[in-house]
């Protein structure tokens, strides 16, 4: 079974920015992603205690390298200033590259 190289983009951000991110993904024609709620600490302090709106969420997206650049650029341009957010990219191997 051959593994094909693609990119995994992981975004950890406050839960209220999740919608914005998914919209950006949609704009770039990406409809596959995985999300889950997490707690966290960072420049904007402890998050995840108390109100649900104060939680963080992780959004993970497997995508081809071609799309990565634009998406990362748009996220950083529109969201970095106002939201608690951290983003990183890693290399992963998948079986069915046509899915992404």
């Amino acid at each position, binding site marked *: 079974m051959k593994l094909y190289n693609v990119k995994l983009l992981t975004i950890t951000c406050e839960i*209220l920015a999740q919608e*914005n991110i998914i919209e950006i993904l949609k704009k770039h024609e990406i409809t596959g992603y995985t999300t889950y709620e997490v707690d966290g600490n960072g420049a904007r302090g402890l998050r995840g205690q*108390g*109100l649900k709106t104060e939680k963080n969420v992780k959004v993970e997206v497997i995508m081809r390298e071609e799309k990565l650049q634009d998406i990362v650029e748009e996220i950083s341009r529109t969201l970095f200033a*106002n939201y608690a957010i951290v983003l990183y990219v890693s290399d992963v191997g998948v079986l069915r590259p046509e899915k992404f």
Partner: protein
Amino acid sequence: MEILELIQANLLTPIILFFLFGIIAARIKSDLKIPAAISEFLPIYLLAAIGLHGGIEMRNTGFENMLIPMFVAIGLSLLFTLNHYQILRRLGKFNLFDSYALASTYGAVGAVHFSVGLSFLKNQGVSSEGYIAAILAVLEPLAFILAIFMTNMAVAKQIKTKKQSFSDDSTEIDIGLNQTKTKLSKVLHESITGKAIVILLGSIVIGYIIGKDGFEPIKIVFDDMFTGAIVIFMIEMGIIAGQRLDDIKKVGVFLTAFAIIIPLFNGTIGVLVSTALGLSVGGAVMFGLLMASASFIAAPAVLRHAIPQAKPSLYITSALGITFPFNIIVTLPILFTLSTFLHSGEGAIDLFNFITEGF
């Protein structure tokens, strides 16, 4: 003094005591917390109970008389929101975004406030007009929509000014204006379909349909357990307020004063006006409490999207950490005393004079 006694009596009810307890638990860094699923469920439950109760009352008493108080409430809310903005921007020197966010947080209404108010009245053996639950539902999104509209107008104006100086960048600006419009219509949709309004309106309608008899089989859950459920919710609210007490330093003296004076002022106006409109003792208290309340559950969800440039630490902390405790401990008994006084013989006469002179 009567008010002090009432404040003291109110202070010693389970609702207030468990709220204070939650604050203390947070301050001593206890690991006590109500699991998220419970504290997410409780507001839904409370709103359903409020709505059912309101709907059943409306069926009993009719809702013909509801329209005038409703429109007056809307008018007052909008006026207050604009007033807050002026105070915050001019006197408080807050930036545009924080000013609008705070203005609408205090122009908006709080469902938890409302729950505590209902329980307080129940305890005093006083009832209130059922349609005030409907006013709660209508007011909920109002101040936000106004604030967002105003913010977007202001931003658009700024952009236009820029446009005139650098006339080459026009496409980007048009995009910006379009985005603003999209955002406004999205926030509008989100507000109206927000879970709080939806469950509240739905329950009012259902309460109206089923009436007292249909309510009987679910009365134990949606009425008898109401105060107990608030108590549990107040523990969590106390914990969250307690965790935010440190942030009060960031809030500053001006906003702290604002967070205490404005609710008292708005609440007093609310009681006076609603009494003049003919609402009952309890109804005027609830009307005043709505005016006095600030939103700390709906606000972050709406404002974070709509005015992301505003600092949530300001509006959440002041609403939940200062105004809410102050309102349920101090403002509520004051409004009750005021309303009782106005509705008693002498008060009514005074008010009559006050009103006739006032207009």
